[in-house]
């Protein structure tokens, strides 16, 4: 038993997977409809939106930092890109919009990284500050209005489907094409963390930046890299969110960052840094999405939903703390 626990501890994503299985069994006992293909597709779709952001959060957490500004970066990149596109090039291809959005995101991320490194302030404080800064700047100088008439390429990419079928009830179910964006980003992030020198540097700095420095890793480069890349991923996530939502709303996303951070931590990344895997982070997201998306199905009244979500996260984190204590 102890040996098994030891092996599971080394691969914390197994715990996340176990929790998912328990949750799925529990919910499907209460409501058999949970096992419908449409619910599976809905879960994958929501995972797409949160999962992209989670990959950026994972990078920062692995390097021992924390970023709460990524939602502000995402919505800033989305809204500014949409506004610019409508103003100068309404027929722009989607790929160009993604590049603009990711560039904006990377620049904002680099600003985070620069301040964390230059002023040696805890990244939590820096990113709380920049979250306000980015949102305030967006609403003051770019706009406050919902943009419903998004560029055509955004709309068509958001509605394009990878898979479509109808259920027995005559409900049409669509898996969005943009799910592939998550797949590609996840694979690239995984390769980055496991197969490159930079990946090793990220974990080294996250484990102990002093030791990493002595080993010859440049702490400055790592910090600029992780925050810049997290910003880039947030810019990508923002654009995907807007396209799937078919709406650019400057008030979106900000306020949901803790859901994503919780998901990544539930996937086995330590808040103190130095650990975490892509598969774990994605499983963590699936866990949080499943909790969020099954409450109506099992009939939890809306006033109780937050209580249940909080409770499940607490229980799950209890399981993880047992691991780190062992």
């Amino acid at each position, binding site marked *: 038993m102890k040996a098994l626990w030891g092996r599971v501890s080394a691969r914390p994503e197994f715990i996340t997977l176990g929790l998912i299985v328990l949750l799925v069994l529990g919910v499907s006992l209460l409501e058999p409809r949970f096992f419908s293909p449409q619910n599976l597709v*809905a879960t994958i779709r929501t995972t797409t939106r949160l999962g992209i952001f989670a990959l950026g959060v994972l990078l920062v957490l692995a390097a021992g930092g924390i970023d709460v500004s990524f939602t502000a970066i995402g919505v800033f990149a989305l809204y500014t890109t949409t506004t610019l596109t409508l103003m100068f090039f309404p027929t722009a291809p989607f790929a160009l919009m993604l590049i603009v959005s990711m560039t904006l995101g990377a620049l904002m991320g680099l600003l985070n990284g620069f301040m964390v490194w230059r002023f040696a302030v805890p990244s939590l404080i820096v990113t709380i500050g920049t979250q306000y800064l980015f949102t305030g700047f967006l*609403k003051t100088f770019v706009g406050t209005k919902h943009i419903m008439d998004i560029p055509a390429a955004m709309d068509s990419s958001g509605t394009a489907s990878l898979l479509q079928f109808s259920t027995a009830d005559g409900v049409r179910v669509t898996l969005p094409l943009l799910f592939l964006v998550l797949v590609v980003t996840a694979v690239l992030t995984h390769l980055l963390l496991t197969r490159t020198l930079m990946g090793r540097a990220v974990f080294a700095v996250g484990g102990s930046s002093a030791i990493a420095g002595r080993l010859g890793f440049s702490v400055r480069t790592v910090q600029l890299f992780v925050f810049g890349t997290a910003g880039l991923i947030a810019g990508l996530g923002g654009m995907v969110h807007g396209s799937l939502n078919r709406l650019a709303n400057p008030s979106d996303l900000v306020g949901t960052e803790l859901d994503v951070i919780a998901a990544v931590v539930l996937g086995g990344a330590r808040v103190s840094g130095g650990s975490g895997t892509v598969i774990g982070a994605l499983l963590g997201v699936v866990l949080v999405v499943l909790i969020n998306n099954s409450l109506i*199905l099992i*009939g939890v009244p809306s006033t109780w939903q937050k209580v249940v979500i909080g409770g499940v996260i607490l229980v799950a984190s209890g399981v993880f703390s047992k691991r780190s204590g062992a």
Partner: protein
Amino acid sequence: MNKKALLIGAGIIAVAAIGAVTYTSAQRKWTINTVVKITGIAWFNRMEQGVKEYAKSSGNNATQTGPAQADAAQQIRVLEDLIAKKPDALAVVPMDPATLEAVFAKAAARGIKIITHEADSQKNTLYDIEAFDNVAFGANLNKRLEKCMGGAGKWTVFVGSLGSKTHNQWADGGIANAAKNTKMQLVDAKQETADDADKAYEKAKEIIAKYPDIKGFQGSASTDVAGIGRAVEEAGLNDKVCVYGTSLPSIAGKYLETGAVDGIGFWDPKDAGIVMNKVAQMVLEGKKITNGMDLGIKGYNKVSVTKGAGAGMIIRGAAFVDVDKSNMKSYPF
């Protein structure tokens, strides 16, 4: 007293009366400044149309201004500048009623009449104008939903947050209306959407998964119907499910056109702009607005007047605008 004296006396009174009448109708032009939360957005551009229309028809000097950003401190600065110029009246849509109390008190002390809109908690106002009673508005939305659903079936209502007073009043108004019809079956009421279209979309999908025979949705946040509409459209249920809610054509238009959203409700800021200025003029002329009065604008033909948070009164109209695919083009905001 002889007849002649009586005649002269009557003559004098008549002349004086005519003089008084001509004096009132040819009185000096009033200066009324309308101050909105933020300039340049569609909603308040629409209100400005109303202010301009009022200026033209009344001959008064009525203009609209406001801060360039939605910021309570900047609105105070705009108000301070205007108070220094001493207009006859200020018609204000407060960004945050509480922060404006002091500046309103100062204006009132200088003899400027204060009228507000969308600020039923404002103390230092003479009249606060509300477009409608929230419960009645919610009931009206639900009546339209009920009609679309053929008066029977499962329906639900979303709110932006359980803590939002207006959203809950709209939802409760709808629930109370549906409760009168036993064939209307409310399921999983008041799901929170955080004013986020995507949350509304996800919750709507979950509702559709749980109740494949769902017939109606009522939204509260302006983004609710956009999210619900997208879920309904994606599921291919445009003709089977009715969607109504508070929103604006600029937000729900796309889905009104495809039929995923069947109708929306709101109030017209243009009419609110006219009414604020009219009420300001009546106050300046020393008139009182009383319960049941007709202010001469559609939706404000029989206003209810109740006591407000301070010494002033709250004027409530029944100015909900029902919009669907057929008339959405008349409301470009």
